[in-house]
């Protein structure tokens, strides 16, 4: 019989056993599950509210518990956002803020990959006097929060007219990125560098032709982490980009300025703005995650 071939995964329920015991156990398990579901719902609720609300008219958004239900959905908020200039003190089209955010993030990610990996290479693979002290210093910097240096940075940079550059500049060199690169580079076999040295390559060509191609996974990791932190930057652009400069507003500050100061206004549009702002993160994350896993799996070094 075919049923006897497949081994039963669960113990078959026995009718002989006294029912009371198993019933108690079942009830306990159900209670546990219910508690877990409740907690999960608690965490998911704001997200559900956020995404659903972006498809609702303002009065439906705050309509009590109905706000959590997928009813009365409309694309009006999105259409409004994309087609009109946003209201309030200044005006500007949504795509401009996207452009600014992408430009700033692009500079930080691109510049960061180049600069930080080069620093890490010097720290991990080259020998020079004072290297260990510099390494310690760089790592120590990781514990200083940005807020601590925001004010001095503001004094140094606020009157610079290149608002896009200013937004990116302080975040390109990043001690945490250096640390990530450093720990990857240190783990690469030393004999590879030596082989390249024998073959006639100098430190620069060893880096570009050997180390970088071998380190794709860590470049992907640093790129995605840098993207995530830079995309959501709020404090720094708030400090250095004046409200009237639409062209230089990134999405987070734009959301604040251009939906107005009154929190009851434009509820649906705010949420839609938020959804659009988060969308690239989700896309980038999904894209990189697949690539990331593949690259880690295929970089089976050794020999």
């Amino acid at each position, binding site marked *: 019989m075919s049923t006897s071939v497949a081994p039963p995964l669960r113990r078959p329920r026995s009718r002989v056993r006294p029912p009371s015991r198993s019933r108690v156990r079942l009830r306990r398990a159900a209670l546990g599950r219910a508690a877990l579901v409740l907690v999960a719902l608690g965490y998911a609720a704001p997200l559900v509210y956020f995404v659903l609300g972006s498809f609702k008219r303002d009065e439906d958004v705050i309509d009590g518990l109905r706000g959590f239900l997928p009813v009365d959905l409309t694309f009006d908020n999105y259409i409004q956002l994309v087609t009109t200039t946003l209201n309030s003190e200044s005006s500007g089209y949504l795509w401009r803020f996207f452009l600014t955010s992408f430009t700033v993030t692009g500079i930080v990610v691109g510049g960061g990959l180049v600069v930080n990996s080069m620093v890490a290479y010097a720290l991990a693979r080259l020998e020079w006097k004072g290297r260990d002290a510099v390494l310690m210093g760089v790592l120590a910097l990781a514990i200083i929060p940005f807020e601590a240096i925001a004010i001095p940075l503001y004094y140094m940079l606020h009157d610079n007219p290149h608002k896009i550059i200013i937004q990116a500049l302080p975040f390109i060199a990043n001690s945490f990125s250096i640390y990530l690169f450093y720990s990857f580079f240190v783990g690469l076999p030393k004999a590879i560098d030596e*082989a390249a*040295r*024998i073959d006639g*390559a100098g430190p620069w*060509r060893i880096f570009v032709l*050997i180390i970088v*191609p071998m380190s794709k996974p860590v470049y992907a990791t640093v790129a995605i982490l840098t993207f995530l932190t830079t995309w959501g930057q709020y404090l720094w652009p708030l400090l250095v980009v004046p409200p009237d400069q639409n062209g230089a507003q990134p999405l987070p500050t734009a959301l604040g300025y251009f939906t107005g100061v009154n929190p009851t206004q434009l509820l649906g549009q705010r949420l839609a703005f938020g959804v659009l702002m988060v969308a690239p993160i989700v896309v980038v994350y999904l894209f990189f995650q697949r690539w990331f896993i593949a690259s880690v799996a295929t970089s089976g070094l050794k020999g």
Partner: protein
Amino acid sequence: MAQIVLDQVTKMFPVAGQVREPRPIVDALDLTVEDGEFLVLVGPSGCGKTTSLRMVAGLESASSGRILFDDRDVTDLPARDRNVAFVFQDFALYPHLTVGANIGFPLRMAGVAPGIAEARVNRVAAMLRIDDQLGKRPRQLSSGQRQRVAMGRAVVRDPDVFLMDEPLSNLDAMLRVEVRAEISSLQRRLGRTTIYVTHDGEEAMTMGHRVAVMRGGVLQQCGTPDELYTSPSNCFVAGFVGTPQMNFVAGQLWCDERWQVVFGQVRMTLPDTVVARHPRLARQEGSVVVVGFRPEDVLVDPQASEIEAFDVQVSEVQRLGKEVRVLFPAPVHGFGVGEIDDLDTLTHKVGRSGELMATISPPRPVAVGDQLRLRVQPEAVHLFDALGRAL
């Protein structure tokens, strides 16, 4: 083409932030490798052989001393300006490049035109029989093929000097013997000066024109395999060269009309050939010496008189088909017992505490516990002083 001269080359081991005196990992190494010669540097791990090789390559700087290539001082020259090729123990292939690109990398660095470089890569690959693998990545290859790629990368640039750091240690035993022969024949064909590092005494003996034995950063002896085998300069070399290892026992030298060596109850008269081989013999009369004899020079001889033989009980039997190796407790102080000054530190294997070995060939039935009467062939005896130096 180059002659390599190492002149008092020393490498101090860097002991960062420690009170300990820095100790030399290579101590005043003097060595000359002739043009076109295949020299094998051999010794136990930590003896400084790899460090010496890396100093020749320029991967490691010398703390003092000079390295000359054909009278040209290269001591402070960076690796890439020395025109040497280095084959690494774990091959160190570039994992992201194809086999062809790996072999061609030195040419690319030297700025050789792509067309010419490709032709040379193809020629080298054909010579090493990996021409059908050129498009693959290193990880798709077997370890034997990877080894060939590493060789190809070394050969392609036509270097003056080949340096190889245990290139066979990552291969399995069968392959090792095969590749060993290939490397030897390749070196013969190309005629390039080659320094080859290994910890395997047998590999050293079969491959090298000359073999340099190192220990604790100090060169012990450098000579042809035959020289090392027949007249080792000390106990260490004697123990390192030849498998199975030489037996050592404590003895005493006497001279009444003829030279005799006494160990245990055995009183052996030394033939003239042995006396001639040991010029320092006369100064050691009456003193304790180390007597060395190889397992293959021990004979089973039931007819031998008591004065020239010793009776032993077999403690272990190793059958190898063509011969039988028997181990037995030393009838006198065997090496490693520590009765002789510094002997146990001079001989590199301390593990065999007092057990000796005899090789019985052709094989005959022997079992553990058997009583054997053994005789050492006097012509094959090696004599060392209490410090382990050859007399």
